[in-house]
């Protein structure tokens, strides 16, 4: 039992338990909807955490990939006549491809330059979605047909809870696999010292690109899920604010901690719900929370908690 607790797979098991047992305590479908949203965002953030927390590369434009997935399931059925599930796969592939093409030159940048370049990338993608009204319905977005799998209509918080939850568990499992493998060690090494990694034979550019592409695919799948769940997609879903939400979720929860990514997602999805009570003050509180957590818990929530309780 002890070994399981210390094993990186503990996160996966814990998550699976949560997903499986949570419905027993949730009082209404509203809460299931919230949970489903948390799972969807967590998927994107787990991917982003792979890039930022493990490989150490900043991306302030990840919502762009999220948006690609989201728009894929809208544009696919509407303009290309393909079924939603195929559009989802296509969207993920498109995001991965975009990340692959843009990744090589972008990842040569470091630090602040990389941050701004990814920012620019995200903005450009969002701008395309806003402007190409013929394809994307412009600033008002476009409707997304519901997912139909083998003639079975997927609809409603309950179903999406399970789809998102199970996908998250699988996604987390894959992530943990990766981290515990030579690729994962290479990524962590790159984060700590690129120079030393190179000298030890690690093809730094290739691994950064790998992390970038994988995180893009995670984001795209999450984006597609959200679009299918909501039935609607607008350019906001690929916007700067959303990219920042992702980064904040990752950092708040704790970079380099997979569980932290999930906690961060939960926090930022649920907090605004709590905050709508405040109406106009919502943004103020959100901004204040971001600032305060970064000042007092700079490593993120989960690592801070782990440090406190790990001593026992």
């Amino acid at each position, binding site marked *: 039992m002890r070994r399981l607790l210390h094993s990186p797979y503990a996160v996966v098991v814990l998550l699976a338990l949560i997903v499986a047992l949570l419905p027993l305590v949730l009082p209404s479908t509203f809460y299931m909807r919230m949970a489903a949203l948390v799972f969807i965002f967590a998927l994107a953030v787990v991917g982003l955490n792979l890039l930022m927390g493990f490989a150490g590369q900043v991306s302030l434009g990840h919502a762009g990939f999220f948006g690609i997935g989201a728009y894929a399931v809208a544009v696919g059925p509407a303009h290309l006549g393909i079924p939603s599930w195929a559009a989802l796969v296509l969207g993920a592939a498109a995001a991965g491809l975009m990340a692959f093409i843009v990744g090589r030159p972008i990842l040569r940048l470091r630090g602040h330059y990389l941050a701004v370049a990814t920012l620019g990338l995200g903005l450009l993608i969002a701008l395309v979605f806003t402007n190409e009204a013929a394809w994307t319905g412009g600033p008002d977005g476009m409707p997304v047909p519901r997912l139909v799998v083998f003639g079975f209509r997927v609809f409603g918080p309950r179903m999406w809870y399970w789809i998102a939850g199970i996908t998250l568990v699988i996604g987390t499992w894959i992530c943990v*696999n990766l981290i515990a493998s*030579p*690729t994962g*060690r290479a990524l962590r090494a790159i984060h*700590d010292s690129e120079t*030393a990694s190179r*000298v*030890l*034979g690690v093809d730094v550019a290739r691994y950064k690109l790998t992390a970038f592409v994988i995180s893009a695919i995670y984001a795209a799948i999450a984006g597609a899920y959200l679009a299918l769940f909501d039935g609607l997609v607008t350019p906001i879903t690929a916007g700067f604010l959303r990219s920042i939400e992702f980064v904040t979720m990752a950092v708040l929860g704790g970079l380099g901690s997979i569980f932290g990514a999930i906690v961060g997602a939960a926090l930022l999805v649920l907090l605004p719900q709590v905050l709508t009570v405040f109406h106009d003050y919502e943004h103020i509180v959100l901004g204040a929370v971001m600032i305060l957590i970064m000042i007092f818990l700079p490593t993120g929530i989960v690592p801070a908690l782990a440090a406190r309780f790990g001593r026992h």
Partner: protein
Amino acid sequence: MLTTDTIGIGFGGVTALSQVSFKVDPGEIFAIIGPNGAGKTTLFNVVSGLYTPREGRVSLGGEDVTGMAPHLLARRGLSRTFQNLQIFFRMSAAENVMVGRHLHERRNIVAHLFTLPSVLRQNAFTRAKAEDLLAFVGLTGIADRAAGALPYGALRRLEIARALATEPKVLLLDEPAAGCNPVETAEIDEVIQKIAASGVAVVLVEHDMKLVMKISHRIHVLDQGRTIAEGTAAEVRANERVIAAYLGKHGRAESEHAPD
């Protein structure tokens, strides 16, 4: 094994190296010494692919590798340690060394994504190798400690273990005994001799003259980017130019006390 031929490089108008040539054979311990600023680390950086020289060539095992990227050089059997430790501080000691095994691991990413049994076997094998190497450099019982928590002397040896993990034919050690007390230095001295005995060509940059004079087969002296002498320890010790530039009277006395 490793040959450099008239290497020259400059930064912003300052010539850091000029006309530097040397040759190192397998199993040999070759030291490069010189006053601070002589260009020793720069030379290492040129040889290990971090800098591209303005002139001259570097050959490894007969192949021209001038300006080749570091990770490609690693594949050809070149490895190094760093003057200002480039340890992976957030990883454990064992993990640091395991990264060194990267070139010898199978890197099929799909297998990694799904942790196929081959990956589990490989992880176990790499881990065992890492533990062996840690023992080789005299670090036991700290395999799972975070590198950031280890004492300085241990970190120096950890970097050596990590560099050895790539199974290099040529190993560049940049001030491996810097900041170490005499006990730690003696331990590192033993490790270096073991490494050379196993057939690796060792190139050493060091300021600790006792260590250098004791274990080096040949010594190359740099001053302001140029070679001023090369030879055995005894020859270099007696060389007037070397004494004037670097050793000084005190240094000469110190090196004369080093056992041969």
